[in-house]
């Protein structure tokens, strides 16, 4: 939940990332509060993925200061990686491993003990209503299950922040909403959620939303305030007003 007085878990100051002469991120500055659901929106090619890769410690910025989870992006990248979770639209689960093997693999990477893994797996199977799927191969389970499992695995080590890159693409509307229930729950438990999506109704679920246009942050506020500022009835309208200026 967003609280004005909460501590900043991500601080970005003047982030610039260039590829040759192309400026993918053009002086981005923003903060994300602890426990907040932060929507990171933008048209295709606006520079979202580039920024996320930097925030996850996978790529260096050209210049700028960045603190993620209390760690410096230049000097403490390995600490950042231990304290974040990541899930993308292309699931990070292994198709030819079972559900349990995937959980054991990821939990093992983050250093969870065998006993703990057993307990967490049982909890997870009960919570996701997937007990009978524990020993099934990932490729045999439905897309909606994979998605919920991928999210659960991304937060199995209790990270400070979880990055979700278009997590709900292609699923049915009921599963999409169940997925957001899981996001709300993680946020209530204090995990900060940094999420990108093309579904504008999902932008309404975020505590605050930033909208990138051409490598810059064109707007950043609560959905309520953005709708007022842009005299729009929905986040879809806000997005169209801001992003439609440029046609690729």
């Amino acid at each position: 939940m967003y609280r004005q007085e909460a501590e900043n878990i991500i601080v970005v100051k003047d982030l610039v990332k260039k590829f040759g002469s192309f400026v993918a991120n053009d002086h981005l500055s923003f903060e994300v509060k602890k426990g907040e659901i932060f929507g990171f929106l933008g048209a295709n090619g606006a520079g979202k993925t580039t920024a996320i890769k930097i925030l996850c410690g996978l790529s260096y910025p050209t210049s700028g200061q960045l603190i993620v989870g209390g760690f410096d992006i230049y000097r403490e990248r390995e600490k950042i990686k231990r304290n974040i979770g990541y899930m993308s639209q292309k699931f990070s689960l292994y198709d030819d491993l079972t559900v349990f093997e995937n959980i054991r693999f990821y939990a093992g990477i983050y250093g969870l003990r065998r006993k703990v893994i057993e307990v967490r797996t049982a909890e997870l199977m009960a919570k996701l209503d997937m007990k009978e799927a524990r020993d099934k191969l990932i490729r045999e389970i439905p897309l909606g299950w994979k998605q919920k499992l991928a999210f659960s695995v991304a937060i199995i080590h209790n990270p400070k922040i979880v990055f979700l890159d278009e997590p709900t693409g292609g699923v049915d509307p009921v599963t999409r909403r169940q997925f957001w229930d899981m996001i709300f729950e993680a946020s209530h438990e204090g995990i900060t959620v940094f999420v990108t999506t093309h579904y504008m109704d999902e932008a309404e679920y975020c505590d605050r939303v930033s909208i990138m246009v051409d490598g810059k942050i064109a707007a950043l506020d609560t959905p309520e305030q953005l709708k007022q500022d842009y005299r729009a009835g929905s986040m879809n309208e806000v997005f169209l007003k801001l992003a439609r200026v440029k046609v690729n």
Partner: protein
Amino acid sequence: MSSILVEHISKHFKQVNALNDITFSVDRGELFGFIGPDGAGKTTLFRILTTLVLPDSGKAIVNGLDVVKDYRKIRQDIGYMPGRFSLYSDLSVEENLNFYATVFGTTVEANYELIKEIYVQIEPFKKRKAGKLSGGMKQKLALSCALIHKPSVLILDEPTTGVDAVSRLEFWDMLKRLKNSGITILVATPYMDEASLCDQVALIQDGKLMTISTPSEVIKTYPWRLYSVKSDDIFRMLNDLRMFPGVHSVFAFGQAAHISFKNEGPDQNAIHRYLENKEHSGIDVKPATANIEDCFMELMIKQ
């Protein structure tokens, strides 16, 4: 006259029933939408119609031609844009377009009018390799290539998946213009909001057609009393509403939740009071009209 006629088509892969007794028809010049999530069977159906996969049973006719017997002729008549980008990444924009024109025994010049509006947007990059284009540009090139032989039927498999809201809007504007030029268009999408832009929609889930109708008819058939409810803490509100006595369904819809009741249900004041008692603030309860997504989820619950 119908441009596409599908009767009792079924198809299975090993244990999976990809398509289960599918029947529908599409009139000439109609924009027909297949709405459903990944794995619903949309791609399999489109592959059967484009003569790339054989059905287990049933019959499919495109422009009076049978998809099994007359597959060669059908291929001349249809334009197909598969879900996965399938142009040649190491050929330039221009080379791809010329290649497709030549394969169909025509030239880019002969049918330039049809693609002009789309192609001018990517023409500045015509020397660029297709693999180096942005998502939006790839989509425009793929559509240009699917249209270059002037097909009478255009089949588009999830052309807007992973595409941002602005590009989606522009893409649908293009489809409307193509439809006005007389082309029959069959399009698949997981985005429920695109349903309202079609003449007819088929809602599909797990290989079964749940309903086929005009978008406004689909909405009219929504059977329950529906309210739109807002409060300051949406997560807590969703959980509280799910405990409301006699509730049928509660789903988040952006800033509000849609709550439905079978039969009469409570009036809006009762819901307001209920949330007040649970110490919610910023409460707003209004009667709501169902949209396609409400209908889709209702049909899913029913199954």
